[in-house]
């Protein structure tokens, strides 16, 4: 069935003279940059970016909680923009640059948002924290001096069952001042 679909897509692509190529269902090679390091991976087309990061790349800091784009726990940066890595296929990111929570600090020097999260206790169980940090750090990239409302909007897709939202907002505002 999957083979038939691939073949069909391939025929369509050929017929339309487009550059579409059929991939899969077996693993295909992709090259990408993860936290500044070039990586080549074998991924099945059904593999999500979150699975690729957590599995073959061993970067388990990225968390999966809903696996359908409803909670933002899996947020990473794709070419500097936040995406849900559970809603992004690994094959889509070939040739692109991914930043994960493991790549946010500058060596042992924490990103100001990370440091502020610790200081303001903007985490409890910590499971939603990596995604939350990535969204808050991305906000400061595009808006260095946000209002509390802008921080709330930036994290509005995130779910934290421990209820850290007030401290997350306080931490991000403090990081902006740092």
């Amino acid at each position: 069935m999957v083979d038939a679909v691939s073949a069909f897509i391939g025929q369509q692509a050929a017929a339309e003279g487009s550059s579409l190529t059929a991939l899969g269902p077996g693993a295909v090679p992709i090259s990408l940059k993860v936290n500044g390091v070039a990586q080549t991976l074998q991924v099945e087309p059904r593999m999500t970016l979150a699975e690729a990061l957590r599995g073959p790349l061993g970067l388990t800091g990225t968390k999966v909680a809903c696996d359908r784009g409803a909670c933002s726990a899996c947020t990473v940066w794709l070419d500097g923009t936040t995406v849900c890595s559970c809603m992004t296929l690994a094959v889509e990111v070939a040739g692109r640059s991914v930043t994960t929570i493991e790549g946010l600090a500058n060596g042992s020097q924490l990103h100001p948002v990370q440091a502020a999260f610790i200081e303001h206790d903007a985490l409890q169980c910590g499971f939603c924290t990596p995604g939350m940090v990535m969204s808050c750090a991305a906000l400061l990239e595009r808006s260095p001096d946000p209002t509390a409302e802008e921080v709330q909007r930036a994290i509005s897709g995130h779910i934290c069952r421990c209820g850290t939202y007030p401290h997350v907002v306080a931490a991000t505002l403090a990081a902006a001042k740092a």
Partner: protein
Amino acid sequence: MAADGTTRTEKFPFGIASVGLGEVDRQVPIDEPPPLAPNAELAVIGKPIPRQNGRAKVTGATRFTVDVTLPGMLYGKILRSPLPHAEIRAIDVSAAARHPGVCAVLPVARSDDPSASVVRYIGAPVAAIAAVTMAAAEEALRLIRVDYNLLPFVVDVDKARESTAPLVHDSGSVPPGHASGFPAPTGLPLNGNVRGPAVASRGDVAQGFAQAGVVVEGEYRTQVQTHCCMEPHAIVADWRPDGLTVYMSTQFTAGVRHELAAEFGLPLSRVRVVVDGMGGGFGSKSMLSKYGRVAVALSRQAQAPVRIALDREEEQMDSGNRPGTWQRLRIGARRDGSLTAISLVGYGTAGVGLGAGVGNIAQALYACPNFETAQFDVFTNAGPGCAMRGPGNTPGAWGLEQAIDELALRLSIDPVVLRDRIDPSPVRREERRIGADRIGWQHRHAPGADPGPIKRGLGVAQSLWGANVQINSACEVRVMRDGSVEVLSGVQDIGTGIGTVLAQVVAEVFGLRPEDIAIRIGDTDFPAGPPSYGSRTTASITPPARTAAWRVLQELYREAALALNAATGDLTASAGRIFVRDEPSRGMNFGEAAARLRTDQISAVASRSDDYGGFRRRMGDAALAEQDLGGVQFAQVAVDTETGIIRVERVVAVQDCGRPINPLQIESQVQGGVLMGLSYALYENRILDQHTGRMVNPNLEQYKLAGPREAPAIDVVVLENYQGQSATDAYGIAEPSNIATAPAIANAVYNAIGVRLRSTPMTPAAVFAALGKVPSGSQ
């Protein structure tokens, strides 16, 4: 007591710090430390120290159970019933067993065993697979053939109460206890799907109502709430010939070890349970659970480690939930407000499980000589409920605290003043005083007084929770010859920050900084720790931690005393030094004292002693302290009468937890309790389709949760309430902070619009119905 030489008399600080402290005499075991001074006199206890595992959490380094990968690890997946009630005639796993990559196949339901041949809710485990990849496990799951015979079912609690309703259980299948592991009252009658009543009473209720000048009566309903832990329930089971190691997202390492040993016939010494990062439990990760048993059985069968992590739909259907409740509450009072009688009838459903109820808050919060309650469990074909943050008292307070609000209105007495008259607790009196002041209670207007379409209101409600203690709690403290210090206990950090709290307690004893203390917890290789449920972790494990550290310090003092030519009793430890108390220059660094040890390491293990003033009640490994925990919360809401949207603008939460150890972490937990209560009041709702028994919102987008933009300004105040009960005098905060929020919001909504909403969640449709803008029931 003192006469036998096992205890000594000590004077402890006693009372509420903001009101003024007195003293109380207590008998202290002679091998326990002297009284701890009030927080104002301490170096690190009571200070807002950032949590010690914060860096690991913000860098993604923390290893949660879902991150544990062992060599040769297999992926387990559970086949779940698609039907709400069915007899299984046959299960054929042969094709699944032949599928490439499959290493173990385990039937869970069995057609040949009458006790295991019936599934009673959608999501009930039927069989399980372990395979080399998750994809292979999922593919194999689809190859299992199950022949189901659909049986009549009922998922609606009101319909389940009818005498003609399909029966959920037969006499043999009623669970023996609550899903949370607590024993259920036995010997209660079962009529159809209704089990009970569990009764409690005092005085003469009929006489009490005859004495009443005013009687209020109302029916209150709460929905089913699901836990929605961000980390799913997860386990990695590693069965080996020499023993079993389990990595599990659990609230109770020691308890899971006991369950595993009993279930698989292993000695405790051959079972190890480990948890590092733990992504939230809220009551649902207290037990081994079925998926845990399945993972271990698969590992034993495959002779390889097996990881099972539930997906979000499994989480929503079968990882426990807060039972739905209905209660009719009747309260009688004299004109001065004093209560004469309380009568409560409650029906709740924990699905196929037991444990639905509205707790004991109605009988315990206020002084009232006459009380009676009858509470029933109603079985439905839905996933079993379990404990969730403040079980019983959270839905209980939803009814009680609205009824008290209504009573105040009928008596024309301010709700705060009424509570001052009927609530005997001096702690909550002070909490009301502080909270009323902070929220601006004196500006509260009459119900519905705002002229425009957006109407504001203020409300108040109170919380009550038992101060639980786990006697079976132990902690080891080690000092190394290089002066480094280690704390070891099986206790787990489920996000509350208990590791940081332990570091503070031990650092205070040694005169060190919290960051000097290495914390090793979440592993049954260490002395058995308490569970992290029932708000008992801090109360249970901090006293033995301080005691163990104090005993080690006495040993260190002996070495230092020799070198300083001083008496051990004259030494003290502070600011990284050990010195003669009255002559600070005569001393040495902590590390210099440690270097004099005769061995590389000294250590002491201490366990939780009884509260110095005695317990109210003991139940096996657990006990209930004399004093209760509580809190008073005030809410300010804005109700848009044109859209029906309720916005909570502000909450003031004034709480108590004995001696607060880390105010920063306490503030975090109280904010979390408030937000979970707000979410319960306004948004969350497990919806089951009456015709199929299926949950229609088993995810995180249609199951509505409060998000960042729904978070109000939350003002947290924590009292220091000293009782002289243990080496730390510290108690819990998690559950008390959740109980009062929803009724405080409901009372504020009443104050805003002048109409009372008695069911959760208070949706815009419910607001419209209450305002008469749409016919009731059209929501």
